């Protein structure tokens, strides 16, 4: 099912007089093609969960429209939208067994017992919990509860599957595994899926389309790699990538990009103050290089090593450069020089923080 969000806005009115109303989501426009896995990404309080709840019908928008396959569902109640929702804490009914939990939506739809049982079993098989059907939620591990929650969302064959921070309550190992599981389930069922996360790695690894949000405003929409390679502003560049991008204060002067006193690249842009972003993997060690960094220490990771250094123009305490472990660095060097890969270098306006191209 195709989802289209048009000028969606949510304002939470102020509780007390004199307080500002909170604009949780502002003028959001997204087209989600059918059968895609979409990630809403952003720091906490950016309105991503509110968006999800508006899609599910639990919150009603202040203005704007939500269309499912050209049909306006903006004022439609949650139960009539045919959405499946997986909650952050799973929200399993503690007094019901796994089977009863999964069958619960079907019972409410007054589906016949035999059919309901069959569908519940199918859903359980899909998430591989068919052996746990007679247990209660508190007898399950976090990962198993998560699967039950997904099965409960899937059993009614929803048009749209919504997941609210689906991996945040799992430990690191399970998170990796479940992440792949979600991708697999989404592929097999072909259900348009929207999920919310604050973990950029998680979003990048499984999304078809990623929506980066900040303070209720959509910053960028696109495929994960696209956004990573071509961020539209400083926030997006900063938010994506581990280790994070290095940011320097710099300027453009006479067609050259300066960090401190060093010109590191040429540019056709006009003179102005800028932020220079360089991805950690964008450095090439070269004694003839354009940027000089004071080395603090070097971390050896096996596959590659990272040079942790300091630079007075850096907006962060340290600058991190990831280079191949084959590269031989001069021992005990206090300073190293680097060349910069041009496609890993991004320029941002110092005032608007917008990308300069």
């Amino acid at each position, binding site marked *: 099912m195709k989802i289209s969000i048009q000028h969606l*806005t949510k*304002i939470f*009115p102020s509780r007390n007089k004199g307080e500002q109303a909170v604009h949780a989501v502002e003028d959001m426009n997204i087209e989600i093609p059918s059968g895609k896995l979409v990630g809403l990404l952003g720091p906490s309080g950016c309105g991503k969960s509110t968006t999800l709840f508006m899609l599910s019908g639990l919150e*009603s*928008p*202040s*203005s*704007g*429209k939500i269309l499912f396959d050209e049909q306006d569902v*903006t*004022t439609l109640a949650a139960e009539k939208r045919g959405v499946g929702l997986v909650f952050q804490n799973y929200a399993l009914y503690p007094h019901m067994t796994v089977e009863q939990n999964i069958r619960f939506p079907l019972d409410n739809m007054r589906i016949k017992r035999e059919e309901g049982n069959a569908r519940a079993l199918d859903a359980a098989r899909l998430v591989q919990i068919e052996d746990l059907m007679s247990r209660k939620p508190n007898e399950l591990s976090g990962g198993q509860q998560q699967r039950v929650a997904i099965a409960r969302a899937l059993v009614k064959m929803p048009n749209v599957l919504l997941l609210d921070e689906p991996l945040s309550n799992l430990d690191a190992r399970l998170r990796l595994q479940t992440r792949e599981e979600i991708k697999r389930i989404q592929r097999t069922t072909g259900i348009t899926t929207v999920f919310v996360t604050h973990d950029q790695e998680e979003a990048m690894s499984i999304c078809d389309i990623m929506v980066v949000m900040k303070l209720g405003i959509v910053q960028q929409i696109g495929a994960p790699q696209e956004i990573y390679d071509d961020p539209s502003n400083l926030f997006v560049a900063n938010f994506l990538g581990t280790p994070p991008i290095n940011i320097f204060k710099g300027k453009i002067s006479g067609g050259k990009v300066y960090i401190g006193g060093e010109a590191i690249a040429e540019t056709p842009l006009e003179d102005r103050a800028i932020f220079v972003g360089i991805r950690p993997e964008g450095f090439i060690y070269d004694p003839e290089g354009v940027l000089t960094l004071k080395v603090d220490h070097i971390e050896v990771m096996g596959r590659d090593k990272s040079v942790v250094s300091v630079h007075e123009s850096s907006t962060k305490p340290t600058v991190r450069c990831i280079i191949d472990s084959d590269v031989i660095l001069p021992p005990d060097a206090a300073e190293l020089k680097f060349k910069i890969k041009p496609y890993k270098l991004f320029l941002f306006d110092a005032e608007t923080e917008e990308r300069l191209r």
Partner: protein
Amino acid sequence: MMEEKDNVSTPAQPPKKHNKFVQYFIDLGARIKGWFAGKFNAVKEFFHGFSKEARAEKKALAAEGPQLSRGEKFRRGFRAQSGWLFVAPALILMAVFTFYPIIAAFIGSFKQEYLGMTGKFKGWGFENFIRVLKGDTGTGGANFVQCLVNTLLLTFVSVPLSTLLALLISVALNSIKRVQKAYQTIFFLPYLTNALAMGAVFATFFKIIGTVNNTETVGIVNIVLGWFGMKPVDWVGINSPVWYLGDLRIPWAKYIVAIIYEIWSGLPFKILILFSAMQSINKQYYDAAKVDGASRWTILWHITAPMIMPQISYLLVTGIMGGMKQYSAIVGLFGETMGMNYDMGTMVGYLYNYIGLGQTGYAYAGSLILFVIIMVITFFNNKLTKKRTTY
């Protein structure tokens, strides 16, 4: 420049110092003001919902939002306030049986010679209160001061004793490992009893039973006392010993019986609360104390006791509240007239006595005095418990 200098030269006005006593009342005044302001704001906010501004605000918000059909709008509006529908039964019942009686009691207590059933009264004034406190009701009913003294005496003797005994039993219970559950159950048994019925059982322990073929026989308490060479005492009957303090009667033998009963009947609840509080103390504290070489008593007084202080003060408060309202046990022990001519009367007993006599005005006045006494005790309790429960 001048202005600045001026500002600097003026010394900051030190807050005027009052003595402790005055300061206390100033603080109290501020607190009361704050409390009323809070309530007032709540009321204001409630009515603000109906004001023009609020409606306009809402309208503006609604205009921005998705357009709803009129039916849908009504449905949503109805749903938003449908909570009142849910609380309506409780609210109606409370209006009739709770809120109205409060108002009626306040008004009725000022009606002289008020007979509730007919609604007749002679005039307004404080006469009811004066007569109740003087014991001059002229109806042959219970004496208020007697009832008040009885209630306070019984409560303030039996509640601390009962709590102390419960504490001892709970500590003992907590220190054993085997058959703990069985003991716990036995100690809790007396909870689920009928005060009236068990009062009657206690009375048989104490009473002079009567005569069989003209020989006097006595209850087990007197028999046990007889082993120590004591003469049987009529603990609960008509010949029970009484001391006189002016008009006030001190039926000490009956007091002892009532206090023993109160201790017995108060134990189960207190043990349950204290024991479960002790059980829920984190075992780590005990382990840590043991490692630090604390003795059994040190652990009891420095770990267990402070940890269960909230429960102890809770028990004292509820115990005293319950004690102020005791009545059925007294009827069970001493019969409908609460001893000889109400000499074991309690405050609640006093109310029922005057309801029975149809003297509504006196009953109201008595109930308001009871209310005030309970409020005063609550106030002091709060003061005390606030101090004690901080650890």
